[in-house]
């Protein structure tokens, strides 16, 4: 059995989380509250160290000093580093009635940034790559079995796309294709579920190994 207080603490907290499986109880709630507090504290320190300090405070400080030393010439530089800080500070406008809309400027920038960046990224990995991967195999069909598989794949892809066609009622032949698409989707969902179970059980193996080996010393 372990003699390290850290291991004992970790084991207690692990069991506290697991107690939720029996039912919600004060020990679980204690662990939950603790986890929220600690994780936010962690995030706060890390964000300060990696973003606020090096990307906001230090550049502003440095260019303030620079401006004081070099005079008006470096004022544009100062303004440049002040822009993002000002945008960040706009988030606090939410607390002031009548100025709350100012925070929307920062939010709009943030969202516009994300939306713009996502278009080429999605075009590449979600569309072009998928098209390439679907038609690529047809260049080298070696035998009948492969040909059958390729047909299964193409029918699946086209019928799934039919399912995602929104501006037409799913009836008649169109509906039958879309229905076929849902069958493929179900196979995908089942397979994904079954496949991911493996990774989830590995996690439990990891935790139980910790309890049984590192804490209790039962595994030899």
């Amino acid at each position, binding site marked *: 059995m372990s003699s390290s207080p850290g291991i004992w603490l970790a084991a207690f907290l692990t069991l506290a989380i697991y107690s939720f499986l029996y039912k919600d109880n004060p020990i679980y709630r204690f662990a939950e509250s603790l986890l929220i507090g600690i994780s936010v504290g962690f995030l706060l320190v890390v964000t300060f160290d990696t973003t606020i300090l090096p990307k906001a405070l230090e550049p502003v400080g440095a260019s303030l000093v620079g401006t004081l030393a070099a005079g008006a010439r470096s004022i544009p530089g100062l303004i440049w580093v002040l822009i993002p800080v000002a945008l960040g500070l706009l988030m606090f406008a939410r607390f002031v009635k009548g100025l709350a809309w100012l925070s929307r400027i920062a939010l709009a920038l943030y969202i516009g940034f994300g939306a713009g960046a996502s278009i080429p990224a999605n075009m590449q990995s979600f569309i072009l790559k998928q098209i390439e991967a679907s038609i690529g195999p047809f260049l080298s069909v070696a035998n009948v079995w492969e040909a059958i598989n390729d047909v299964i794949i193409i029918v699946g892809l086209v019928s799934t796309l039919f399912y995602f066609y929104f501006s037409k009622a799913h009836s008649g032949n169109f509906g039958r294709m879309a229905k076929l698409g849902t069958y493929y989707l179900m196979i995908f969902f089942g397979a994904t579920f079954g496949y991911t179970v493996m990774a989830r*059980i590995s996690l*439990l193996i990891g935790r*139980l190994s910790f309890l*049984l080996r590192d804490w209790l010393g039962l595994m030899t």
Partner: protein
Amino acid sequence: MNFWLGIRHLDRRIIFLLMALGVAVPLLLKIGLPVRVTRDVSSVYDYIENLKEADVVLISYDHDTGTLPEMVPMSTAILRHLFLKNLKLVGMALRAEGNAIGRQAFKRVGDEFGKADGTDYVFLGYRPELTATILGLGTSIERVFPKDDRGVPVAEIPLMQNIHNYGDIALVISVSDDDTPVYWINYGNARYQVKVAPAVTAVMATTFFPFLNSSQIVGMIAGLKGAAEYERLIKRQGMASRGMDAQSIAHLVVIGFILAGNLAYFATRKRGM
């Protein structure tokens, strides 16, 4: 109450309990279910088996702590094989968290075989920037890692005297929980022809099937199962074999529940309940 109706409304906690037992019991008792060694794994084993003494293998720890339960048994089995064969090992990490994990793994397994840091193995440390690092090692390892993880200049490490770039490395193994091995393949192998073998989580395995088909990688070890196969090959059954037993039995428990659920569904439906 009717039996099948009882099953249909089974308390979740009974499921949870059986699941916990399904994992815990195989961990505590050695069961030793059959493991079929697949070609992907045996080709990595064979490649290493055919290396000459004092050939150099580079292992990169490209994963975080979240996937440790899968990664540790894999890296342990591989390290044991390499030390057993008296090969020279160079370690590094492309993830910050992987650095500490790799350093500890080298020391732990190295000590098992009485190997010394600096002469039998060296751990160079962590570098961000996948592409730049992988390409950089092709021209000069010393330029990318002027000092090893302990802070010793690479020029002063006995082992590193004859290791300068990929030309001196027989195999790169990337222990990874994401697609970092793809970078090793695209930059290390394609550009510098160094042999690459990924050791990845089970979930990532499908990503590398195309590379296996095109023989761009030596082979692949994937997840606990891959580790268990490797343990079987080096005839040292450890954590992975037990973990794999737990995996198998836990899966059978889940399948059993699905069967029970369906039997109960049909039995109660017929009687209109």
